[in-house]
């Protein structure tokens, strides 16, 4: 077990190098204080692995330490060379704050508990056995150091018809990489620890992204709440594929919102990276990531920001391009989703199921297991819309959650197997994505809602001093000013 933990630590270190290269390339690295860098680098590394390694797996490359190490070295070298071109710009003068260290200390307690819990848990979920970890063991057990991990016979053979062969191989590839680092393919417990490490990196990234827009106390409270939500914890431990998707989708939405509100083009690059990771994680990623970009495009069009719309289209196309090998593979081998098959005729035939689908989604969406975050966040956002203030936050947020719920409704509406068991087995997992979006936006929404609702409140659309929007408003130079951001 100690050897496995060491292997996991080494795997995460390689991913952090990969992420560092990507942050260099995007220009995010120099915007971060020194102690803020490891978390976002690790999360970007996970996203970079999913976005970069998954297409390579479909092209026959093995997810071995040699390949991933080479990928990380290329990313680091390329990113550093790219970043050198920005030498004309002065580096950001940033300072770490005590709030950041305090937040890290507070959040570390539940995260460490969760990591221990996840790392002791055996692989005992039907989906893991049937699908994710089975594929990971196949990928880790076949091929050589460089090529040959993907043996199509188990994805196309009739005895493996329930392994969801049409799903992208991002999560299995990550697990296979971890298995290579463990040096064996048998005791799979520590495998679960990877998702919790990624969760910790996600929280550091969210802190880094949102801290200039939100004060420390509510932000810590929001992130702590995310860690403690009973259903989210269950998804983190028992359904890590949906958990990873929720993290990537939320990071995509956060980055895109920051880009839309003038936080710099590196946020758009991050959004594209996270969206590509969504596409490599699960089938649902297409709907969730696509809807996020669609809403951003709508916001650009509404404000007649055509140049930004063009940049958004390029970023979206770059993210979508990473899914091309996966889609070609599916077309070539005739792989398609069995449980959900979208078609207008099916939707017409199954219209009667809509009330039940909406009822079940609504029931689980506002229930206590998700800490009432969705009704609270949506209530605050709708209130802000009624007051016609902070529309740049409230409107995209409501639109995003509504679209994600719509995606789920449409998916279940097109069910090709019995609806009851399908929703019973999957809804509590897939609802994690909209719930995490709500939980992440909750501190921002509550803070703004209270500020507008207080007697004598003066509408103030300005962000907290020191962030990029303010900088841009005064003809900014693209460099982050000193911010109390760990």
């Amino acid at each position, binding site marked *: 077990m100690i050897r496995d933990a060491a292997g996991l630590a080494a795997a995460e270190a390689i991913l952090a190098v990969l992420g560092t290269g990507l942050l260099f390339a995007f220009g995010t690295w120099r915007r971060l204080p020194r102690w803020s860098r490891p978390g976002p680098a690790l999360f970007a590394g996970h996203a970079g692995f999913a976005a970069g390694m998954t297409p390579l797996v479909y092209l026959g490359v093995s997810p071995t330490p040699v390949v991933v190490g080479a990928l990380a070295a290329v990313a680091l070298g390329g990113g550093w060379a790219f970043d050198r071109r920005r030498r004309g710009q002065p580096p950001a003068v940033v300072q770490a704050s005590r709030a950041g260290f305090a937040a890290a200390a507070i959040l570390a307690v*539940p995260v460490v*508990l*969760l990591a*221990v*819990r996840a790392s*002791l*848990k*055996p692989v*005992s*979920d*039907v989906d893991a*056995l*049937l699908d994710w*970890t*089975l594929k990971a*063991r*196949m990928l*880790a*057990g*076949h091929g050589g150091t460089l090529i040959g991990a993907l*043996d199509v*016979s*188990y994805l196309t*053979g*009739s*005895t*493996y*018809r*329930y392994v969801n062969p049409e799903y992208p191989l991002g999560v299995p590839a990550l697990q296979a990489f971890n298995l290579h680092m463990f040096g064996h*393919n*048998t*005791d799979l*417990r520590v495998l679960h620890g990877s998702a919790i490490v990624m969760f910790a990196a996600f929280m550091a990234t969210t802190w880094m992204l949102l801290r200039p827009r939100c*004060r*420390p*106390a*509510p932000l*810590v*409270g*929001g992130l*702590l*709440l995310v860690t*403690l*939500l*009973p259903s989210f*914890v269950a998804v983190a*431990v028992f359904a890590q594929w949906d958990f990873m998707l929720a993290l990537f989708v939320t990071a995509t939405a956060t980055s895109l919102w920051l880009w839309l509100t003038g936080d710099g083009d590196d946020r758009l690059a991050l959004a594209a990276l996270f969206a590509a990771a969504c596409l490599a994680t699960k089938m649902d990623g297409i709907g969730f990531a696509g809807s996020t970009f669609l809403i951003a495009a709508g916001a650009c069009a509404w404000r007649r920001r055509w140049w930004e719309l063009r940049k958004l289209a390029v970023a979206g196309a770059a993210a979508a391009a990473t899914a091309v090998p996966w889609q070609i593979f599916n077309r070539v081998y005739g792989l398609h989703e069995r449980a959900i098959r979208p078609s207008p005729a099916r939707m017409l035939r199954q219209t009667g199921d809509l009330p039940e689908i909406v009822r079940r989604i609504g029931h689980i969406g506002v229930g206590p297991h998700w*800490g*009432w*975050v969705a009704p*609270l966040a949506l209530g605050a956002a709708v209130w802000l819309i009624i007051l016609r203030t902070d529309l740049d936050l409230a409107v995209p947020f409501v639109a995003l959650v509504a679209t994600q719920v719509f995606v789920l409704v449409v998916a279940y509406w097109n069910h090709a197997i019995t609806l009851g068991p399908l929703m019973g087995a999957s809804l509590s997992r897939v609802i994690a994505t909209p719930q995490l979006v709500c939980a992440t936006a*909750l*501190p921002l929404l*509550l*803070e*703004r809602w*209270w*500020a507008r609702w*207080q*007697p004598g409140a003066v509408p103030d659309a300005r962000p907290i001093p020191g962030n990029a929007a303010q900088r841009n408003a005064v003809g900014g130079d693209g460099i982050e000013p000193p911010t109390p951001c760990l």
Partner: protein
Amino acid sequence: MLAMLVALAVGFGLGWAVVRRRLGPQWAAAIVLLGLVVVTAPRFVNTTTDGIRREWRMGRQAVRRSAPRVIAHRRNARLAKFADSRIPAGATYSLIAVDPRTGRRVSPFGRGFAEKMVWLQFELAPRIAVDEPQRWTIVLGATPAEAGLSPRRAFRFDDDWLVER
């Protein structure tokens, strides 16, 4: 529950006027979130520590052989363990299921076989189960003869067999 709600309502009412005027947005938001944290934290602590305690006590082998509840009572763990030790790494194997009532070959996904098959496929991975007959064949629900096989060696585990041809 009712007492807690009443206490919350009274506290809310008393502090309302003061809070609404005096409390800054960041602290108001933090207090709401802290309230939710307080409500959710006990459950988190209980479930997490219970899980840690339970799984810490499990031995390495117990962890290795633990299975989902829906599979645990139907899998043939002895067969899986034995096949794992016998079938060479890198070899392929085939799975045959026979309906004991009709004596006919059926899909391994049929009722009663799916759980066994899922467990076998997972335990024997990265060996691949293929459709065509192989040197190593696992017969579920019947004898090798009933499945039409002429084995060189056969090993029985309850109703299921591992056959070497």
